Structures are given as C-alpha cells and as structure tokens.
C-alpha cells in the first residue's frame, strides 16, 4: 500500500496546473444580473482537467520510476475519490457560505440544478462526490483509449449518439432519461448506486485498457 500512496502523492503533486487553473477560474469568474452562476460550479473544472494529467503526463513518468501498472491503477482511483471529495466539499462550502452573500435573486449552483439539495446539503455533497468520481473515471478511460483504434471508435459512437439522439424526440427522451438517472436525480440512493455501479464498470474497462498500454 505504501507504493500506492506514493503514487497518489505524486499524481496529486503533479496536478498543480489543474489546481491553479481551477482556482483562477473559480476566483476570477464574475456574473451579474438577477440570475448569477455560483463560483463553486467552477470547482468542477478540476474534475475535467485531472484525468488529462494522469493519463498523458504521469503514466510514462511513473513507469520510468519503477511503479507498477497495478499501483498506478489503484493510485488513480484513490486520487479521483479524494479529489471528488475535495471538489464536492469546496462547492458545498461555497454554496453554503458565499452563494447567500450574492445580492442577486437567484444563484445557480449545479447542486440545485441537479436536485441534489432536495435531500439536504450533506446528502447533496455526497451525491455530487459520486457523480464527480464517475465523470473522472469516465474521462480517464476515454482518454486512455485515444492512442488505440477503439478510442477513436468510442469518440465516434459518442458523437453519433449525441447527434442522432438529440434531434429525434423519442431518442431524445432516452438520452435525457439517461442524464436524469446519472446527473439530474433527486433520489439519492438510486443516484449514488448508479454512479458507483457505472464507476466500477468503467474502472474495469479502464483496467482492460491499461493492460494494453505500452511505453
């Protein structure tokens, strides 16, 4: 486990640029009017940026330092879990402490948009954490696949699904239903369960991709 935590430490330390960009955007973003966006929403940016660093920057370097693929895999999962917790904590804190200070009538925070706050702020934070974990694991797998033909195929399938499902009403209902389950879900138990299940399934897919990864 010592090696895994050393990998976690390294992954987080080499994600400095991600932290800085997220902090700058969250601190500098401004909006005005009756309806404003909560700055806490921008904390989600870190969840989007992190997998890029883990996949494209850290993997080769950790392998050259002698880390095993197994330690890298578990290190990434633990880091995503930790970051999901931290991002969720930051957004929840901003929602509780800073959002009420705005003079605007409506402050839009994604926790409200996704109906998670219907279950209370703590449960909303937990729901947010598992959703962000799912996002990071999904991006990690998608990015890991990019050097291979099946990565491009997955990209094409995703674009095709969005392009075809959006204009056709019946298919649009399927697509929105999917997003209602994984994101806009007020049922905390179902939402957390689905996010965990999908994260686990994607992690196994990520493991299969990692096994094919060469230096």
């Amino acid at each position, binding site marked *: 486990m010592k090696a895994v935590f050393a990998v976690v430490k*390294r992954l987080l330390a080499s994600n400095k640029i991600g932290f800085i960009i997220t902090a700058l955007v969250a601190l500098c973003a401004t909006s005005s009017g009756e309806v404003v966006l909560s700055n806490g929403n921008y904390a989600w940016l870190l969840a989007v940026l992190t997998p890029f660093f883990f996949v494209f920057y850290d993997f080769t*370097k950790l392998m050259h330092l*002698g880390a*095993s693929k*197994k330690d890298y*895999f578990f290190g990434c999962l633990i880091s995503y879990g930790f970051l999901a917790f931290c991002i969720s904590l930051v957004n929840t804190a901003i929602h509780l402490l800073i959002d009420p200070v705005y003079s605007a009538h409506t402050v839009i925070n994604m926790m409200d948009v996704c109906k998670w706050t219907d279950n209370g702020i703590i449960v909303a934070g937990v729901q947010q954490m598992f959703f962000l974990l799912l996002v990071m694991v999904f991006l990690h797998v998608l990015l890991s696949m990019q050097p291979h033909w099946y990565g491009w195929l997955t990209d094409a399938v995703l674009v095709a699904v969005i392009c075809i499902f959006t204009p056709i009403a019946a298919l649009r209902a399927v697509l929105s239903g999917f997003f209602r389950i994984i994101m806009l879900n007020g049922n905390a138990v179902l939402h957390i369960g689905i996010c965990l299940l999908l994260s686990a399934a994607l992690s196994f897919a990520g493991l299969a991709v990692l*096994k094919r*990864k*060469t*230096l």
Partner: protein
Amino acid sequence: MIELNQVTKQYGQATVLKNITLSIDEPGIYCLLGRNGAGKTTLLKSIAGYQNITNGTIKVDSKAITISTLDTGVSYIENFAKHFNLPVRKLIRIASEVNPNYDYDFALDMMDRFELDGKKKFNHLSLGMKTMVSTIICLASNKDVILLDEPVLGFDAIMRVEFYDMLTQSFQKHPRIIIVSTHIIEEIAKTIQKLIIIDKGSIRFFDTLQSVETKAFSISGLQKDVKAVTQNLNLIGQDTVGGLMTSYIFDYPPEQTAALEIHPLSLQDFFIQMVGHKGGAIK
C-alpha cells in the same frame, strides 16, 4: 529466471524478432550486442512487458509476461527515459517510495559518486547525467530482472568506467539478472559474464566470454593451407586477398604450424564476424 519460447514480434510486414528461444537461468550481468535495428530494444521491452509480442511466450520467474501483466518484477530503462522535472534527489526519493525493495542508500551513494547535483532539476541535466539518473533509479529498484537499454549513451570515458564499476557493485550487493545492451563492446567485457548477440531478430550467440576467448580465432596463410586446416571447423567468416586467406573460426583452433598464423579474435572482431553478413554463422 527468464525464459523466451519461440518469441516473434512483427510490425506490419516486418519481423523484428524471429522465433527467439532463450533461457537465462542464473543471476549475472549479460551483455546484449547487436547492430542498429537488430531488435535489441524490442527484445528488452518485450521482456519488460512494455510491448506485446506477436507469437510465443515470455516468462520471468515462471510468471508469464505480456503487456497485460500488472506487476512484472522487471525494471527496464531506455536511454531517453522521461522523468518528472524535479530535483534529482527528490526524483530518487519518489522512486524509492514507488518501489517496495528500493535500495535508497545505494542510489544516494551513486548520486554522490557521479557528482550529481541533487538540487538540479532533471530537465536541466546533460544527456549523460539524465541517463545516469535513469540508470541509478533502475539499478536501485532491486527487481529480479534489470534491463538497461544503451545506458552508456552520452557518457564520457570516465563516466563509462564508473558505470561499469557501479554495475559490478550493484550486482555484488544484490545478485540478479542484469541485461545491458550496448555498442561499446570491449569496455564492458571485464564486467559481464555472458554475451548475447542478436542479429536481424535472431539470437546468433549466447555463451560465456570464456568460450569466445577459447574458441574464436583467426587463421591466416596461403589459401590452400588455410582451407586444409579449417575444412572441418566451424567457420564464421572469411577474407581473401590474392592467394592469402584469413578464416575466422568459432571452434578449437588447429595446431600452430609455420605456414599458419593463428590469433585469438578480439570481442569486437568476433562480433563483426558474427553479424558482418559475410556468410558467417555458428553451426
């Protein structure tokens, strides 16, 4: 222990490794020699599980090695390995944290010996120093199998001597299989136990240096005399100038006569005859 059985690697139509069967049973320092493009890096990367093979099997300590193997027990370093742009001392410390059996003291000793500035960031080092850092990290990992791909590239003469000493010292401290691929043949001869020569994707030679010393000879003289004494010997090469002939053998030499000049082959000459493509081959 490394076992390669009928290992073939193809890139499209090109076959880089051809049916390689090789067994390395004992701990030791092995030198992998081959011309550019002979398949050295492909072979080492395949043993490390960093590259898939097309056919055959590779086992390290009876464990099958493929790119799917999550923990191979093999440490491989290539000559232009990229590392985090951190101070050298910190890089070595991180390596010690991610490797369970890392010999941190050895790594620090080597860092001092090679006068590596621990505070200098990796990207600010010269090519030779970068290679040295990679080599120290790899050797200190203490894994069962250490694969060094062209480690002396960018080293000056003094660094190369120090490197061979470091290799010996590391092996004496932790006997294990260390394979070093290099082009600088004569220098490493004092350090290694066995020699592996690879050519055009096939293993042409795998034996001890003693066998080269006792069996690799050049025999010069008149064509008819040389032909007469070498007809039943294992020829690995031949040069003819006018009526004079030099034959290169890998066999026990014939008795010295006044008409013949028999000289042991240097390691470099032996290698050239083995891969020089003048029709030489060990039967």
